[in-house]
């Protein structure tokens, strides 16, 4: 990778919003879900970018927006891998097809994502055939074997049907299918959440080694901070459609600045039985995205909320190099 491409982000997101209109409501205004609101992020090429948040935070919607799998309501979204540039917010159908070979998704549930009626070979080959990326069956087979090998699947596996595989193996099949088109950008949405701990470590190690080998850029969406801490080099924390904090992983976990990030870290059940009762507890639950509170979206649960938090929405401010936080009081709270 040259110096210049290193400086251009692969994915650049500016003020991106994704809203969904809900049906019904009868008279008056139809309710709108503000799933993602005014998000700014840059994803550097070759990075393992983590996106964390609880259910309803908008992390999946943001991931899908970057793949242009959901319509974008407002904002700018560009992709630039040095060979191709796409203006994703206004992309045309033909170009979108092209983009799909460069940006892929790995799903959460390896049981639901694979067709039970297709052999593993056909499952992995399907993207190549649909996108017409290969010219002959031989070429397709070659590509399938190559990626299957990287995902530690052998020729024998390719002839079988998915039901014969365990959760971990199925997830490796899903990964092979996502990577067979040689994408540059991969969104992994809760890709290890359905796996047992002993298998999860294996799949995480595989993702990391493939990323380095193929020079991929990952957007790793997860609710599990301990997994993100181990695999990602940069993390963005979302809450109710907003980014609340973004920082390099080490920095975020060593010195979190937003009260929500702190609470989230503290809520991870520690493996030390003597840590009981030490967790900093957060009251209440995440509000509905159809009816977000005014001001800071976290104010309803924040133990440090004051008047200004209830009125004005904080902007993402620079707290340190590459470390941004959207909180009115982060500076005071550090003291």
């Amino acid at each position, binding site marked *: 990778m040259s110096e210049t491409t290193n400086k251009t982000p692969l994915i650049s997101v500016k003020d991106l919003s994704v809203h969904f209109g809900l049906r019904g409501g009868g008279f008056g205004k139809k309710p709108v879900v503000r799933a993602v609101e005014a998000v700014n992020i840059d994803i550097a090429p070759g990075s393992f970018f983590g996106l964390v948040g609880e259910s309803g935070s908008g992390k999946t919607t943001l991931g899908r927006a970057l793949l242009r799998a959901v319509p974008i309501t407002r904002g700018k979204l560009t992709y630039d891998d040095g060979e191709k540039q796409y203006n994703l917010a206004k992309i045309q159908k033909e170009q979108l097809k092209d983009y799909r070979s460069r940006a892929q998704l790995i799903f959460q549930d390896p049981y639901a994502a694979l067709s039970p009626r297709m052999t593993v070979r056909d499952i992995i080959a399907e993207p190549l055939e649909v996108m017409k990326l290969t010219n002959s069956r031989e070429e397709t087979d070659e590509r399938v074997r190559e990626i299957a090998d990287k995902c530690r699947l052998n020729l024998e596996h390719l002839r079988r049907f998915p039901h014969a595989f365990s959760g971990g193996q199925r997830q490796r099949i899903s990964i092979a299918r996502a990577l067979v088109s040689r994408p540059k950008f991969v969104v992994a949405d809760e890709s290890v959440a359905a796996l047992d701990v002993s*298998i999860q470590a*294996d799949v995480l190690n595989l993702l990391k080694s493939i990323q380095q080998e193929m020079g991929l850029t990952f957007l790793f969406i997860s609710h599990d*901070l301990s997994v993100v801490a*181990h695999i990602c080099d940069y993390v963005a924390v979302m809450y109710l459609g907003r980014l609340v904090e973004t920082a390099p*992983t080490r920095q975020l976990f060593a010195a979190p600045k937003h009260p929500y990030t702190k609470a989230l870290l503290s809520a991870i*059940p520690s493996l030390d039985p003597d840590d*009981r009762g030490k967790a900093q507890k957060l009251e209440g*639950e995440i509000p509905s995205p159809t009816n977000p509170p005014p001001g800071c979206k976290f104010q309803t649960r924040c133990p440090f909320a004051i008047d200004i938090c209830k009125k004005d929405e904080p902007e993402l401010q620079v707290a340190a190099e590459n470390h941004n936080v959207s909180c009115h009081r982060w500076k005071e709270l550090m003291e």
Partner: protein
Amino acid sequence: MSRLLDVENLTLQFDTDEGRITAVDDVSFSLEAGQVMGLVGESGSGKSVTAKALMKLNPPNAIYGEKTRITLHLDDGPIEIMDLKTTTDLKVIRGGAISMIFQEPMASFAPAITIGDQMTEQLQIHTDMSIKKATEVSIEMLDRVGISDASSRFKQFAFELSGGMRQRAMIAMALSTNPKLLIADEPTTALDVTIQAQVIDLMKDLVDDFGMGIIFITHDLGVIAQTADHVAVMYLGRLVEQGPVREVIRTPAHPYTKGLIAALPRMDDLDAPLEPIPGDIPSPLERPPGCVFNTRCPVAIDGICSTEVPSFYDVSNKHKTACHLVEREAHGK
């Protein structure tokens, strides 16, 4: 503390189209009143099946082993659960002396009946309360588990509550009949971490208040470390290690428990490599002979682990494990 539950030689098989599957194999453990026992294991380890066996909730194709004995010690004498045959007999334990909460509260509540009606219904079945008294008790219970505005929640349906609220309502319902034993099957797994922390806290409070015994089933060792007094680790239908939570988590004896802990992404050391346990959990149709873990065990001893089933060895007073290697090393061979 008094003994609440004794499970001896619990063996449970299922007749399926593909043959007879052994889901639980010779499992024994006991529980004191007021104690929380964590039952840990991955998918297919038999932890849920074990818990359901305590209420005989397993489907009709379940075959219990002949030596299986489950004794629940109540104030007015012990109950042999294996001897309870009819649903009328089982009423003493189901929803009476034993309550259960499940992972997915939405699936456990009837969708078209209000929370309140479901709560009062079970109180009327299991106690001689009047409807008025049952309503009072239910609302009080909802309030106790931290549901704000309990009297209006009482009239709502399950879908109107958030995930965390539903799980709280589930707990309220399970505790309203004042059970002696609460079985919690992955009660926090479907919840977000911040909500999980709230529910764990609530459950700890409730043990202190009500003094019942809890069997807490989970795959998450962190949750166990924060809730349980005692841990039992299961793998492929067998108990491989059990003991006090501190000992088992800090100085695990069985290679499987060690492997599970090493596979966890640790927050205190971000540089530590993630070490998966090699291989996959074998299918219950192909249970390995000898020690069930021998096919994935990094320290399996040739000629022994794949042929002989290890028996329990006392690592310390209350901490025991079923592993040939641990026993050998202790004997200095």
